[in-house]
């Protein structure tokens, strides 16, 4: 290590005798070269932990990989697109067909997003203007969002318990439904899942809208007020149009997140869930790890990915739009 330092040193002294402009140019040009090594850890990690497994999964979706062939998974029989065809056929004994799960997942993400948007907007508007105790209200509004998903799922599982859960008891006292409504199995499980999810995810829209509201100048409202516009009018003519970009982003991210939601139904219903609540990620899990049909599971998750790319492409388009305007 010490011997090569001698020639380096002479090079260094050689530079100092050169004109000062040359030194600066040399330094600036090396300064402008991107330090690619700083990206190396991210790229390496993403390659090993996300991209490589993804590639394996794409390959597996074309093979008959199951509990018999997993030991020699590299030589599992190649079956082409057979898994994809299977995914559209009847479901197995343990769950719904992939097609039905696609339907459940799509309706789940659309319904929850439609429900949480107005709640989030209203909540953000309520705490946007200063008042006494606003800090505490803002803190309270964040609590459901901060609660870990697994805790949320356990709590709602208990609230919806048949016979003694709080929701059944309250509904029975109000004579709205019988104590044996069975929220966690059958067709109502979808709505139980929606309610649990709305409770925990509306603060996401609230946070995004609150952030967006900070970018709207109060001058706009003042001049609207001067012109005699009512607050309701102000909301539809100023707030909503100004919030459009944030809201669009919030709705897309919310749809994507909900589509990928695995933990909530997994813990709330256990496996296997009722077909009405068998969202695609959960169905993939059951196919892969309970019926050990890894090839079919991989094919189903690729189909999920393609479905999710539809909103993602919109999202990317929007980001490009943002780049063009700024």
């Amino acid at each position, binding site marked *: 290590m010490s011997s090569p330092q001698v020639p380096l040193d002479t090079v260094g002294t050689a530079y100092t005798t050169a004109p000062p402009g040359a030194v600066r140019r040399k330094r600036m040009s090396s300064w402008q070269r991107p330090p690619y090594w700083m990206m190396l850890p991210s790229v390496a990690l993403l390659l090993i932990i*996300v991209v490589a497994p993804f590639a394996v999964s794409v390959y597996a979706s074309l093979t008959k990989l199951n509990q018999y062939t997993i030991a020699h998974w590299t030589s599992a029989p190649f079956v082409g697109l057979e898994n994809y065809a299977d995914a559209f056929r009847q479901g197995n004994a343990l769950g719904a067909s992939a097609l039905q799960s696609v339907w459940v997942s799509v309706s789940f993400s659309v319904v929850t997003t439609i429900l949480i948007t107005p709640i989030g907007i209203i909540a953000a508007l309520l705490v946007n203007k200063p008042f006494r105790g606003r800090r505490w209200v803002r803190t309270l509004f964040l609590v459901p969002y901060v609660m870990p998903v697994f805790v949320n799922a356990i709590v709602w599982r*208990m609230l919806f318990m048949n016979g003694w859960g709080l929701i059944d008891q309250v509904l029975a006292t109000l004579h709205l439904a019988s104590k044996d409504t069975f929220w966690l199995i059958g067709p109502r499980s979808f709505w139980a899942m929606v309610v649990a999810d709305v409770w925990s995810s509306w603060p996401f829209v609230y946070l995004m809208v609150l952030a967006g509201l900070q970018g709207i100048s109060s001058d706009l409202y003042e001049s609207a007020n001067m012109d005699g516009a009512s607050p309701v009018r102000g909301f539809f003519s100023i707030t909503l149009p100004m919030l459009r970009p944030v809201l669009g982003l919030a709705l897309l991210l919310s749809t994507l997140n909900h589509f990928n939601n695995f933990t909530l139904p997994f813990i709330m219903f256990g496996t296997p869930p009722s077909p009405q609540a068998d969202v695609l990620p959960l169905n993939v899990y059951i196919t892969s790890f309970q019926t050990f049909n890894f090839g079919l599971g991989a094919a189903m998750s690729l189909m999920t990915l393609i479905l999710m790319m539809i909103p993602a492409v919109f999202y990317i388009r929007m980001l490009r739009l943002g780049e063009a305007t700024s």
Partner: protein
Amino acid sequence: MIRSISAQHRFWNGMRAVGIALIALFIVIPLAYIVLISLTPDTQVGGGSLWPSHWAFENYAKMWSTVHLAQGIRNSVIISGLAGLLATLVALGSAYVLARFQFRGRKTFMLSLITIQTIPSVMLLLPLFVIIVVIQDAISIHLVGRYFTIILTYMTFALPFACWLLYSYMSGIPVDLEEAGSVDGCTRLQVVRYVVIPLLLPGMVVTFVFSFLLAWGDVLFASVLTSAETHTVAVSLQTYVSSGESGGDVYWGQLMAASLTSGLPIMVIFLIFQKYIIGGLANGAVKG
């Protein structure tokens, strides 16, 4: 005219109070029920009694021995904390290069970060496990069940969002200061350490919190990649529920006490930093 404006004011203030009260009720009722059940003796929960005959504070004592709760919380703190910290630091390097330099493949890289976020995590579980086992066999060091493995997994899952978040923060910081640093003869690392990091600290806090949340809330990977010694608290709580599925009784009282206890640290962290987080989302999301 003036009176009508003040009347209007009073009307909207009233509306606001009603609105806040409604939302607060929606939030508080389930929370209050958790607290109530956590203080109800396990035997009374299934009976459907809304008010316990006595306050079962023993739930908070028994929960530590029924499952390895203390160990789970400790593991979760270690795993989520390190994953959050490392994700923030590693993403900082990428975000710096992405925000400060134009180069070929920059846009492709940023788009692929978004694409990676849409990959369903269930899809990666088995192949990732297989790859880890292959590496483990190749270097003959045990990897499954180690802190190291699960930390690297979580930090990588947190990376795409962390890169985007830090990138949008970095874009908001003027480049002049760094150039001044370079003229003064700082090396690249010194500039990042003494100029970029202090200015970026609020953004780094937000990035850390979101990465931490991701690691803390995961059940799927923790259940496969951790062993009995490295189980996270999410897996510990699962033990309560799965005992019910296999036909036994679920200790609801203890489960609620344990859920509260395991949710509390993360709530406190989030609420401490909430000012940064709202500001950070305003910064990152609006500019996006």
